[in-house]
């Protein structure tokens, strides 16, 4: 499966050297748009999109439907994001976003390219938060709220979920490690997209974000 990489800005999915990047081929007809400006690069591209077996655009928190039509768009265009939690390194999981009209061939070709680079692909339809963020953000918000309400100490809450369910990390330790302010950014965005209370950022996450942004302003002032 030969593909070219069009890099446009910093990539959340591929911040470092990776087999997916190394295995790219400048003669490939398929296209991987990577980086925070991937969608813009896709929109302004000079490449022949019709000839591509597949085109994959790196997504942030937004839906693929922002970049291509919801009901009747190109059958070879997919969205993707490699899952990572805040400052934690990206995981092996690639969420590959399809539209109802996406062709099976394009889906299979994109999957093959990611899997050849050692990544694990889960296919999902175009919903805010895809699979992972749609599931974990309400759970993290609930954990943060229950911590405020004194259900148990942070350590006991984490330990219960680790020992009781075999989770490698408890939610509080995980959020503190990966950056509570990042949780705020994602869950606030999903709250706006979905309008469901469960996504409304928990107090602790909002505070962490405010603190982070005040600190950054201080740094700017000092510089």
């Amino acid at each position, binding site marked *: 499966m030969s593909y070219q990489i069009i890099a446009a800005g910093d990539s959340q999915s591929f911040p470092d050297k990776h087999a997916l990047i190394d295995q790219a081929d400048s003669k490939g007809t398929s296209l991987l748009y990577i980086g925070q400006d991937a969608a813009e690069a896709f929109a302004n591209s000079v490449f022949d999109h019709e000839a591509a077996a597949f085109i994959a655009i790196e997504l942030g928190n937004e839906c693929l439907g922002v970049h291509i039509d919801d009901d009747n768009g190109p059958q070879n265009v997919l969205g993707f994001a490699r899952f990572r939690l805040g400052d934690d390194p990206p995981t092996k999981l690639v969420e590959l976003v399809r539209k109802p009209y996406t062709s099976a061939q394009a889906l299979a070709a994109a999957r093959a390219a990611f899997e050849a680079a050692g990544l694990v692909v889960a296919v*999902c339809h175009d919903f805010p938060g895809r699979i992972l963020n749609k599931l974990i953000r309400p759970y993290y918000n609930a954990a943060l709220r229950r911590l405020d309400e004194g*259900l148990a100490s942070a350590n006991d809450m984490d330990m219960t979920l680790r020992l009781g369910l075999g989770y490698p990390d408890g939610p509080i330790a995980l959020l503190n490690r990966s950056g509570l302010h990042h949780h705020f950014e994602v869950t606030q965005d999903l709250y706006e997209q979905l309008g469901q209370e469960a996504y409304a950022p928990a107090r602790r996450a909002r505070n962490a974000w405010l603190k982070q942004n005040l600190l950054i302003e201080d740094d700017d002032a000092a510089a």
Partner: protein
Amino acid sequence: MNAKQTIGIVGCGTMGTGIAIVAARAGFKTRIYDLKSESLENARKQAAAFLKKSVERGKLAEGEDALIMGQFLTTTSIQDFSDCDLVIEAVFEDLKVKHAIFKQLNDVCPSYTIFASNTSTISITEIAGGTGRDDRFVGMHFCLPAQLMKLVEMSPGMNTSDETFDKAWKLCEALGQRPVRTRDTPGFILNYFLVPWHNDVINLVDQGVAEPADIDLAVKTALGYPLGPLELLDMVGMDTQLLLCEALHGVTNEPRAACPPLVKRMIGAGRLGRKTGKGFHTYDSNKIFGA
């Protein structure tokens, strides 16, 4: 090890049998009460088989399983609980049934006996209120399977004395378990988080966000969970998930605890999970072969 103390367990279902194995293995004299002698005989066989396997796997010394089984007394007479230091109730989740059992126990047991409930969803304070000794009552929620999982969620009721809670905590540690203190609120810690999380996953399937196999793969790969949520739900069973939702949502009105419509459709279709061979995944001799 504490050979002198006696622990009584009411109900010999999966949880009761598991807790009995834990108690006997830790050296306690162990009494198991149930109404049906066939169920008790079955529990004894299950315990013996589990312990035999522990010997085979080198987790117990040769012959130790027989010694542990020697600590077991199965009985259909609640009178045999008259020397218990701690009684753990593990019958099904019905407040009236639990009250009836504890009332009988209150007449049989000496005043120093501590009563505990293994309930996962009913308020400890509510159960304690019908026992005649609400100051000597604690919640002790073991995880499934109890004989393998160390965690016990321990909750004091509103009227539980500090002395009782301390004693019960030490007994829990003497059982070789790891107690964690939680408040007497619906679902304690584990089910408070797990039931809505599972509902969210079920709704994700119903909304057509992704196929069950993709959801399980995504969660396991990204978060390192040992089981995908839909694999776990297939083990829990849709019937049990419905009961958990009703118990939690009934007291909290938390929207995420409300039973997803898909659960009732799956129950209607006979897709309860592993126990019927089909849930979110299809099972053939316990092997997953597709969604």
